[in-house]
């Protein structure tokens, strides 16, 4: 979901684009068929993907039923499969990515459009866009070779020493073997990966707000903070949510980078320093060698990821509709 289709829907609904005339010439008609065909292909493609996921995963769904969602056993030996650790891992890493990534992105966008001196704008903006273009496998490799050892040595080890034995905090922040790999590390890498997306879209949106609005706000004596808080953010609100959802989509489905740094353990753990797995990383790890029921369980996992993403996008739509009304 991006900002452009949102803007178009609104425009159509408010009747601004109703000057459509009946196709008169052959080229007009051809053009209509061609564009309608393109639009339909999307629907057919989506239905096809969904269908093949359901058919491929059906044996697993039939065999394990609802238990497939709630069980945390993943044992190729006895052919027992449960998706819960992977679902929990997917949601946890995405949540960490959003908690860290959204404020970071908004900060970057606001700084670039409102506060940065002119000479800084170009290089920083270009850097942000370059970050968005870095392939995920590069984030994975950088994460594994550079970021993971740093987290292990300077975060997990000291924090574990401090919190060892404490109730609650001692559970959430204790690393049994501080290897640097883990759910938190994966969430942070994801945050770095989605930040350029959200930051760059938000920056474009803030730039497009008519300067008259900002200038009049300053004119009545607003501080920079007040302009940002009461004028710019509400104006760009819908687009920011759109950008955020794009980032969330990437965080939920990211495969390679997560596989490198999450530690790939199919176990549930209360500690964010412990290794875990996401749906995408599990599929990436096991797909090559999977046969029979295991293959089916992996496809069923894919189906669940598809569904989770769908639900998230639906929520985003609802949110956008609400924010749009205000």
């Amino acid at each position, binding site marked *: 979901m991006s900002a452009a289709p949102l803007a178009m829907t609104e425009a159509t609904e408010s009747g601004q684009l109703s000057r459509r005339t009946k196709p008169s010439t052959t080229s007009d008609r051809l053009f209509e068929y061609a564009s309608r065909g393109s639009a339909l292909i999307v629907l057919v493609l989506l239905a096809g993907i969904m269908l093949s996921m359901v058919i491929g995963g059906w044996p697993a769904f039939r065999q394990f039923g609802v238990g497939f969602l709630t069980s945390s*056993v*993943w*044992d*190729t*030996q006895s052919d027992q499969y449960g998706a819960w650790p992977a679902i929990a891992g997917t949601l946890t890493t995405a949540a960490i990515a959003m908690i860290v990534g959204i404020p970071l992105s908004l900060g970057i966008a606001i700084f670039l459009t409102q506060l940065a001196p002119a000479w800084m704008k170009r290089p920083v903006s270009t850097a942000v866009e370059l970050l968005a273009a870095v392939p995920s496998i590069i984030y994975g490799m950088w994460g*594994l*070779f550079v970021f*993971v*050892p740093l987290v*292990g040595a300077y975060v997990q080890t000291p924090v574990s020493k401090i919190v060892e034995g404490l109730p609650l905090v001692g559970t959430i922040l204790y690393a*049994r*073997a*501080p*290897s*640097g*790999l*883990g759910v938190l590390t994966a969430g942070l890498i994801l945050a770095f990966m989605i930040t350029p997306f959200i930051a760059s879209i938000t920056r474009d949106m803030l730039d497009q707000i008519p300067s008259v609005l900002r200038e009049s706000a300053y004119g009545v004596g607003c501080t920079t903070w007040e302009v940002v808080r009461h004028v710019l953010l509400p104006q760009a609100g819908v687009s920011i949510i759109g950008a955020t959802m794009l980032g969330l989509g990437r965080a939920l489905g990211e495969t390679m980078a997560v*596989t*490198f740094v999450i*530690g*790939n*353990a*199919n*176990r549930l753990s209360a500690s964010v320093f412990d*290794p875990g*797995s996401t749906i995408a*990383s599990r599929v*990436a*790890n*096991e*797909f*090559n*060698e*999977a*046969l029979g029921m295991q293959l089916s369980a992996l496809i069923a996992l894919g189906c669940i990821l598809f569904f989770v993403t769908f639900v998230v996008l639906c929520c985003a739509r609802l949110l956008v509709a609400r924010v749009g009304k205000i």
Partner: protein
Amino acid sequence: MKPMNFLAAAGFLAASAISASAADITGAGATFPFPLYAKWAEAYKASANIGLNYQSIGSGGGIRQIKAKTVDFGASDMPLKGDELKTDGLIQFPSAMGGIVPAINVQGVGAGGLKLTGAVLADIYLGKITKWNDKAIAGLNSGVTLPDAAINVVYRSDGSGTSFVWTDYLSRVSDEWKSKIGANTSVSWPVGVGGKGNEGVSASVKQVPNSIGYVEYAYAKQNKLAFALVANKDGKYPAPENKAFQAAAANADWNAAPGFGIILNNQPGDEAWPITSATFILIRKDGDAAKNQAALKFFDWAYSNGDKIATDLDYVPLPTNVKAAIRQTWGQELKFTH
């Protein structure tokens, strides 16, 4: 894949893409023997002018592809069982062997500086031994100073023939491992972190102090990873090298399983390295006869001329008597004549 051979492999792929013709042999499967097959194919192309297009997609993929008849041969690190071979009409034979070593990163301990037994390895991977200075480890290593630190256990997160051999070994030396976890290309690991591929495992072991993981010996050697010695069935601690892998192969009873599908783990003999395995080739009996002959001709050539290439890449060639038995099977089952 071994990085040293990456260029060779890439060159091989490029070359095979250009010269791909109807006469080329196609194969797919295990990643472990890929560098070897790539080098063999290069040399075979030079001598017989027939190319090999091998896709290293993993053992499971190789089994799937040969069953689906999309390739001339499949390759797997995990041997298929007799009845599975029969149902699908497949012939199975080994092509080469390799050993697996426990790679370690313990301060002050160099390659071969630590001794472990299978039971201790199983307890470490079960999460029962959690510290390096545990009595069970210290008892085997008098004179070695072991740190009072948690053991960081590393395993292969992707489904892999290496994991199959490792877990099969642990199943043979520990009843608890056998009943709780078992042997497979991916299992439900009770503790530890997973690295993707040999690269992921060795990166974790190298970077994280107090780690233990398992990789192919060739990989450990080329990347200069420290490794531990493991007690074999006779209670000896041989150094992991070609001689020790070959000893495991020589002492094994290759006719014990259909399709030479034996596993070379924990073989008897003073010199036998305890964690050794062969990698296997699968061919359809009902496949295109000409293509089957072409594939067999390639492996026949490799058995006769490929031993030096294998040794140079730290693979272990099959013993001569095993090669003879395989050729005999080819003659009986696929009417292959030399």
